[in-house]
């Protein structure tokens, strides 16, 4: 709550005062916007025969010489180098920012911190090496190294999580979400349910989705407290994100014990975020869903998701998956965030769009590596001038 107080004290500033504190940083990120790959670059990249050609093509773009030190290029190397560029830019912006923008940028990193914690916890279940896990952590969400090394040493049970929180995570920003999760589960954990949740994978999934739900709700409250244009734009983006999470939780639970009628009511219901257009009527519908067709029926009431599911059911599985359809919808929203000035939504949208661009690069390089040239066009263009949806 101290962050909310800080926001109230310093203020975000309307049109006439925003630039005093945040003008430079916003202008820099708008400069970064011109670094996105253009249509003709994507065209050249999809025509490449080898990954060396990709490296040559990328040298003309904003990526420049990032691959020049690597002897042989593989898609994971492209991904990690591109991600490193994003991280450098992000931390430059973070260094130049003042409150409340610096807290906002921190909130963007909490999502990746949660992912890293889950990666380390899951990794210990499959018995992988700590060093290998740490090299796979997302660079935007790194903790202190000692903290990260301690995480795998805890067991994946509610008691283990409580110990993990008290000794390791309490000092980190995501400790707050852990604490709230433990408060929620301590009310429900009995000896019987511990025995029933013997499949630790379910427990990890529930943990991950609960942390994301708590994070999204906290971020939403923070943005609403800031008010003004930031609240309008960020709240819309976070609502779309929450809806996507709710639908994904439902989809991923088909075929797992989470889909049992009993578990749906007690466990799956608590994973749906309470922000979002689907809450509360849509999530009530989703609780009763237990297979694909019922999901499509339930989503019939929401025009945006109905059109997504229509496109998904009409296209073959080779073309676009449901994730891609959601990415396309989100890219549209994030591009719209750039349309107005003097708000913080551009920072969030930039990070997400850059991630999408990195996914595009990895997809193209994987297609070229595996000689699947027919599928190389299935990336999602960003700020494209020729995309069909932009021709009005």
């Amino acid at each position, binding site marked *: 709550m101290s962050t909310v107080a800080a926001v109230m004290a310093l203020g975000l500033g309307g*049109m*006439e005062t925003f*630039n*005093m504190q945040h*003008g*430079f*940083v*916003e*202008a*820099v990120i*708008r*400069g*970064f*916007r*011109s*670094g996105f790959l253009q249509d003709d670059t994507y065209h050249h990249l999809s025509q490449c025969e080898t990954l060396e050609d990709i490296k040559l093509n990328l040298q003309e773009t904003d990526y420049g010489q990032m691959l020049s030190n690597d002897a042989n290029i593989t898609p994971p190397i492209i991904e990690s180098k591109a991600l490193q560029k994003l991280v450098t830019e992000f931390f430059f912006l973070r260094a130049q920012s003042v409150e409340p923008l610096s807290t906002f940028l921190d909130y963007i990193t909490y999502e990746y911190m949660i992912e890293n914690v889950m990666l380390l916890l899951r990794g210990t279940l499959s018995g992988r090496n700590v060093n290998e896990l740490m090299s796979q952590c997302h660079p935007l969400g790194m903790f202190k190294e000692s903290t990260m090394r301690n995480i795998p040493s805890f067991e994946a049970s509610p008691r283990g999580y409580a110990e993990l929180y008290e000794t390791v995570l309490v000092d980190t920003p995501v400790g707050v979400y852990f604490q709230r999760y433990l408060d929620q589960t301590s009310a429900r954990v009995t000896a019987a349910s511990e025995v029933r949740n013997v499949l630790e994978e379910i427990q990890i999934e529930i943990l991950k989705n609960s942390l994301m739900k708590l994070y999204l709700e906290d971020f939403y409250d923070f943005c609403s407290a800031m008010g003004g244009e930031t609240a309008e734009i960020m709240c819309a983006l976070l609502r779309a994100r929450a809806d996507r999470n709710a639908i994904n939780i439902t989809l991923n639970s088909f075929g797992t014990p989470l889909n049992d009628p009993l578990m749906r009511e007690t466990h799956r219901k608590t994973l749906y975020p309470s922000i979002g257009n689907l809450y509360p009527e849509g999530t009530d519908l989703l609780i009763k869903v237990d297979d694909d067709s019922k999901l499509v029926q339930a989503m019939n009431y929401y025009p945006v998701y109905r059109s997504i599911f229509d496109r998904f059911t009409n296209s073959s599985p080779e073309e676009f998956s449901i994730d891609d359809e959601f990415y396309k919808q989100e890219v549209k929203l994030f591009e719209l965030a750039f349309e107005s*000035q003097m708000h913080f939504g551009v920072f969030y949208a930039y990070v997400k769009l850059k991630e999408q661009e990195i996914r595009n690069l990895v997809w193209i390089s994987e297609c070229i590596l595996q000689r699947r040239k027919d599928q190389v066009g299935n990336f999602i263009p960003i700020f494209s001038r020729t995309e069909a949806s932009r021709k009005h």
Partner: protein
Amino acid sequence: DNNIFSATIMSHYGTECTTYYCNKGWNEVISHLSPYSWANWGIAIGLGFSVVGAAWGIWLTGSSLVGAAVKAPRIRSKNLVSVIFCEATAIYGVILAIILLNKIGPPKDGYFSSTWNWGQFYFAGYSVFFSGCSVGFTNIASGISVGIAGSACALGDAQDDSLFVKILIVEIFASALGIFGIIVGIIQSNNAQFPVQ
């Protein structure tokens, strides 16, 4: 006796007032403010608010300009025009201040003679004050407006050069607001001249 106010006040209130400052109402309080103070306040407000508006505008547009020039250095020189437009509002304030302060002068021999032109005295005081207000308030609005438009101009130019001239037209309209202020201010204070005897 020679006190300036006794003549006006006594004539206004008859025999009710027995001293010079009897606080009969707001009329007395306001008319007791010397026209010299009105006039000099007017110059301060005119100049001060114009400069505040210009500074605010330069703050808004300069920060965006510096940030946008990081990735698009070609915009540096062209977009200084936005800063010049903001500066122009400060210049209007200075011009008006110099015009106005030439109208103020002390009475000859340092006291008000029996033939002192009270009407012209008060007229000049109020006229200079409100002329300064006209310019000050319009220029603060104009300065902020040019600043916000200039910031958008810098960011747009960094992405697409063809946008610069178009957004500059918006800025020209915004700085026209300051010109309205100074035109009205000069006309308002045209006939004002403090009497010298």
